[in-house]
């Protein structure tokens, strides 16, 4: 048989109906549900008297709207209504729900892997664009809209056009202080916010192989910021070891059998992709965004660009608009930009390893005067583990706020927002206009870079910091 990519293998295993030149009917193995994009879908089912076909393949949590302090007293009436609506819908349709009382609650893309719901070879969907996160396990995972949520609830399938495949190969070795976040920002910075449109990206190469599962999730998470339908990584021993013993993963002999099957999913030697791009990992420096989409980023050691640096009129105009919104002058050194807020959290960077990396920088230091800094663990489990390891105390001693899990300031649909005109160093994935609050200015960075920004009140090159003794 000819060499196939992991995408080919998963697709062919899930096509219920495959007619040439038409969308295929694709079977969905796992459907994750949250409070914001599901109410209208359940309402649609009710109106037509339809049932959920496979409640056992559906799992719900609440994350976008939940407060991260005093989580049981939701003051926003409409947010409360969405949360209550999810509780009622899950009860009515028989769907498992990790609600605010559950130790399993957290950001949907953090708890899927944590509980072992996310597994290699599965097709996974969720009414959320960052579903691509789950691709880190060699699953085909993508975000869908509410109509599609309804369609999956009713039929456990989706009509899908087979996507093109792209290989993003990252070779070399990362320098000290350079994280997965910097790698994905650098990729999007180089190729743009829509180079992935129409493709599923498979990340390969030495840099990716050397990454932990958490780092791989950060990479896959932001595939959507490159416009890709999904991002994934062929599973390997690290994937299997991560999954071993997790709640929804098979045990004993069944696990060994599953591993054997999972191993066979990896892209075959010599398989063809529709497009291949190469990046040299050793050239990547810690990144900071200066504009209003993730491709507008530069190494921390560089300066804010000028609209004149761009080639086309459209790009020049977009850069000028972004600088205006961000309140930045061209040629300002990134290291001179002062920030008032720091947010460490979101489905991109809120796992235990992210918090550890940030805590390492924070330990023994203090948050700069005038800076409000918060850490929002991705899930209640992450929170608990971090507390067992004493990370919470390191952050609190330094002057950070330590919160309950949720999406929080990643999108400011809850009480956590950045005030108009103020600047935030954020470990999240989107620096769009208004994302963290109306008029809020977001700079995307890695967890250690965010931690360092909290300490110094401005961006600093953590590569210098790591060499310096703590003082």
């Amino acid at each position, binding site marked *: 048989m000819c060499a196939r990519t992991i995408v080919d293998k998963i697709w062919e295993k899930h096509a219920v109906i495959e007619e040439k030149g038409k969308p295929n009917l694709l079977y969905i193995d*796992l459907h994750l549900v949250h409070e*914001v994009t599901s109410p209208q879908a359940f309402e649609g089912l009710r109106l*037509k008297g339809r049932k959920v076909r496979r409640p056992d393949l559906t799992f719900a949590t609440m994350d976008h709207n939940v407060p991260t302090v005093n989580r049981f007293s939701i003051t926003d009436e409409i947010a409360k209504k969405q949360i209550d609506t999810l509780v009622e819908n899950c009860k009515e349709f028989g769907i498992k729900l990790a609600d605010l009382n559950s130790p399993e609650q957290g950001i949907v893309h953090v708890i899927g892997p944590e509980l072992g719901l996310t597994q290699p*070879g599965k097709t996974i969907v969720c*009414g959320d664009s960052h579903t691509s996160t789950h691709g880190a396990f060699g699953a085909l995972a993508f975000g869908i*809209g509410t109509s599609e949520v309804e*369609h999956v609830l009713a*039929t456990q399938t989706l009509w899908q056009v087979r996507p093109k495949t792209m290989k993003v190969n990252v070779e070399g070795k990362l320098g000290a202080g350079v994280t997965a976040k910097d790698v994905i920002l650098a990729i999007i910075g180089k190729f743009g916010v829509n180079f992935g449109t129409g493709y599923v990206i498979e990340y390969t190469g030495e840099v990716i192989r050397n990454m932990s599962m958490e780092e791989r999730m950060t990479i896959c998470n932001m595939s959507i910021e490159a416009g890709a339908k999904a991002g994934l990584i062929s599973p390997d021993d690290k994937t299997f070891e991560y999954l071993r013993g997790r709640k929804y993963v098979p045990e004993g002999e069944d696990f060994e059998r599953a591993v054997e099957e999972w191993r066979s999913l990896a892209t075959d030697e010599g398989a063809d992709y529709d497009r291949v791009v190469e990046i040299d990992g050793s050239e990547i420096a810690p990144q900071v965004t200066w504009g209003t989409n993730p491709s507008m980023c530069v190494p921390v050691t560089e300066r804010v660009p000028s609209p004149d640096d761009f080639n086309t009129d459209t790009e020049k105009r977009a850069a000028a608009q972004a600088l205006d919104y961000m309140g930045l002058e061209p040629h300002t050194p990134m290291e001179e930009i002062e920030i008032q807020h720091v947010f460490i959290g979101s489905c991109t960077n809120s796992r235990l390893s992210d918090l550890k990396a940030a805590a390492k920088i924070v330990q023994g230091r203090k948050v700069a005067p005038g800076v409000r800094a918060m850490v929002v663990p991705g899930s209640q489990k992450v929170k608990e583990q971090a507390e067992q390891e004493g990370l919470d105390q390191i952050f609190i001693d330094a002057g950070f706020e330590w919160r309950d899990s949720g999406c929080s300031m990643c*999108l400011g649909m809850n009480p956590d927002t950045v005030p108009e005109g103020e600047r935030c160093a954020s470990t999240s994935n989107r620096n769009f206009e*208004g994302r963290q609050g109306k008029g809020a200015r977001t700079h995307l960075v890695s967890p250690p870079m965010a931690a360092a920004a909290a300490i110094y009140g401005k961006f600093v090159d953590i590569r210098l910091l790591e060499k310096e003794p703590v003082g």
Partner: protein
Amino acid sequence: MEPIPVHKGKVAGLNRVNVDTDQIIPKQFLKRVERTGFGQFLFYDWRFKDDGSVNEEFELNRPENQGASILVAGDNFGCGSSREHAPWALQDYGFKVIVASSFADIFYNNCLKNGILPVPLPEKDIQYLLKESARADYECTIDLQEQRIRDDKGFEQSFEIDSYWKEMLINGWDEIDVTLKYADKITDFERNHTA
């Protein structure tokens, strides 16, 4: 879903690229549990000033763009989140057709599923339409059957759409009904399938 075989309507231009879903419908308006009533919040932060008054400078607020049902915009329209509230808001505001040089994937699909027709056109046609749309009475006709867009000044261009979606839109079918016709196939599939 309403069938849309042919649509004629007024054209409004939005000369911007990478218009993201946070702009189309800011997240503070996503908390409703209904599908309707989102039009009043469309492009909220652009349409209204901080004090709640109308921002006269924003393209859609200009007199010549009132009552438009066709929106023309630049590259990568609808990027960002998967929120279907974006097409709901566009539709509720009165748009039936969105023309752009390219669309973000999820947004494109969300449009089709809600009976909004997304029309991808080459950049030079977008520039032409953006220019023409400055006239208050400028209209275009979109013929989905023929896959063509034209005005009465001689502009005519064909566009791509998947035949599956074309059929759905022309007939105004409900996609779930269509799929449920294959319920037996899905059951057969499930019998042999291990995730």
